């Protein structure tokens, strides 16, 4: 696998449910192929119910019924034998969890067990993967908390005694104390106010550079992506529709959906009205035929209604799944001139 730490091949993961004998299938992840390089921050963007959460559930090896992997693979390379999380045994997954593969959860009141002291939570999460215990373990944790600008006294605190920003830093600390190679960050800044957001983002970025970890960073907030991601993948209705380095995606998107996402970013001093996208994301239980975006797409032609556009290269390191990729223009001129909004 060489340069890539994660390779996802034609991954399909569906929710398969049965209500009173009627089978229902929700195609949450429908044929995603992507790679994450070592030391890279890969941003995943998409609106609610686009399947991004299901996708990272598979990446995090949290595949539980009714979610099932139908076909494809998601393979990690942590130096040893590669681990395909779609077929790995629980023991194999346990062996990579936290030591190599960790997870930062969405910032919320309930990420941390309310009746357990932070120190005990650190023990639960990290003592086994680190192979340390007692004072050696505590010393390691205190040292790590220093990187996060947290005082060792938080170890004796209960979660409710900390502020939202501190709790999120504790969560990041939990996810990084074992120095994992790969971190999945699921909307880690969404529930925080912007000042704390900036703090948390730079913290994640610093830790990532220091440890040389790869991050898959999920958020619907394009301005956060602009700040942190090296490359961005846009997911629409269970499929990857465009993938490009951050600057390229913001300046020259090659998919009408990404063009609208990028255009939604406000800019100081710009009072022009943003073009809104008509309609709603399609139901993943009965997605439209052809390109799934065609009912909302201003550029749609007849071909889009019947044939699924493949994700093909449209430039260096730039892939798009659109029959009219070459006709897509950036919607807000400011972005194409000034570049990334941040």
């Amino acid at each position: 696998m060489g340069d890539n730490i994660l390779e996802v091949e034609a991954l399909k993961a569906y929710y398969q449910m049965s209500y009173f004998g009627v089978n229902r299938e929700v195609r949450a992840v429908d044929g995603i192929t992507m790679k994450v390089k070592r030391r890279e921050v890969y941003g995943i963007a998409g609106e609610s119910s686009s399947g991004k959460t299901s996708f990272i559930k598979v990446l995090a090896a949290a595949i539980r019924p009714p979610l099932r992997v139908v076909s494809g693979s998601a393979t990690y390379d942590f130096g040893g034998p590669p681990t395909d999380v779609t077929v790995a045994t629980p023991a194999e997954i346990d062996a990579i969890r936290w030591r190599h593969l960790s997870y930062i959860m969405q910032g919320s009141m309930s990420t941390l067990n309310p009746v357990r002291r932070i120190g005990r939570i650190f023990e639960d999460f990290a003592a086994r993967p680190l192979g340390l215990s007692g004072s050696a373990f505590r010393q390691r944790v205190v040292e790590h908390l220093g990187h996060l600008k947290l005082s060792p006294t938080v170890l004796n605190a209960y979660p409710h005694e900390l502020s939202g920003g501190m709790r999120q830093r504790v969560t990041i600390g939990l996810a990084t104390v074992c120095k994992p190679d790969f971190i999945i960050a699921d909307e880690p800044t969404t529930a925080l106010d912007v000042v704390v957001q900036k703090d948390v983002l730079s913290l994640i970025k610093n830790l990532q550079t220091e440890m040389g970890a790869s991050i898959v960073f999920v958020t619907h907030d394009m301005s956060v992506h602009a700040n942190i991601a090296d490359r961005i993948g846009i997911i629409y209705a269970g499929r990857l529709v465009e993938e490009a380095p951050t600057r390229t995606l913001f300046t020259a998107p090659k998919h009408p959906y990404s063009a609208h996402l990028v255009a939604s970013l406000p800019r100081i001093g710009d009072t022009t009205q943003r073009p809104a996208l008509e309609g709603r994301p399609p139901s993943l239980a009965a997605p439209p035929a052809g390109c799934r975006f065609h009912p909302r797409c201003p550029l749609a032609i007849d071909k889009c209604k019947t044939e699924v556009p493949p994700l093909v290269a449209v430039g260096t390191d730039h892939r798009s799944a659109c029959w009219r990729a070459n006709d897509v223009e950036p919607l807000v001129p400011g972005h194409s001139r000034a570049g990334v909004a941040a």
Partner: protein
Amino acid sequence: MQGYLWFAAKRFVQLLAVIFFGVSAMFVVTYLSPIDPVEQVLGRLSARSNLSPEAIAATRLALTEMFGTDQPVLTQYVNFWSRLLRGDLGASLMAFPTPAMELVLRALPWTLGLLLTSTAITFVVGNLAGGLAGYFQNSRLLKAFGIVTMGLQPIPYYIVAFIILIVFGYLWPVLPISGGFAMDVRPGWTLPFILSVLQHSLLPALSLVLVGLGGWFIGMRALVSNIVTEDYVTYAELAGVRRDTIVGDYVIRNALVPQVTALAMVIGGVFSGTVITEQVFNYPGMGSLLVDAVNAGDYSTVLAVCTISIAAVALAIFIVDLLHPLLDPRVRAE
């Protein structure tokens, strides 16, 4: 720690207030009751012996003085408290002149032992099984356990108790169905007596446990099936935290907070519930004593039973209250 002591002190004042008002209410009820203790005792005495009218009048005078019923209410009330604080609730009318308190103290260990043990067993087993059933939702064994306990739950207690009597007293007579201990053993701290007491308490305890399990089981299972979807449980699972730590310290531990609150309320109801148990199994506890006293119009014994019950219930709730902040650190912030 200082905050905790302050919390405990406040709760202790509450405890005293509850006991004071509860016992005062009892005094008012007995004062308003149409039973005159003097006539009650007099009736008993004259039924057994042939007294002259003069002797009856003299006895009535002596008894009135002893019970103090000719005094104004307020004086009676003050006297009542001053005697109560010395542990004296007057003579029992049905077992005159044995002090009512002595009757109660004789019955109390039976009730306490039976109820505390069966409540503890019910709470632990019900919550543990409910917690596991909520977490391991596909376990056949736990599903079967749930069906049985929930099937027993809606059956009225006295019917379950009678079914147990019929099964173990008639169809398969292996256990004693009546009394607190066997006739042929002498009470005392001897092995035969303790074994006999345990043997006799098995059926009443079993009936209480069977009926009580369902409530705890259903409550805990519902709480847990909510908690397993909480972020902190998902997160711990993603981090590969040990399964027993997740079930014990993350799931059940959090669900226990409301369950302990519920325990305080159940303990409150426990003393009244024991009346039926003790009647069905002819158990020598507070419930039987209360029923006998009410039937005999023995108001000082009723008063004594109720006073002790009020104090015991208030004390149990006080203890549960003290446990609460230890279980849930968020309560301490009060």
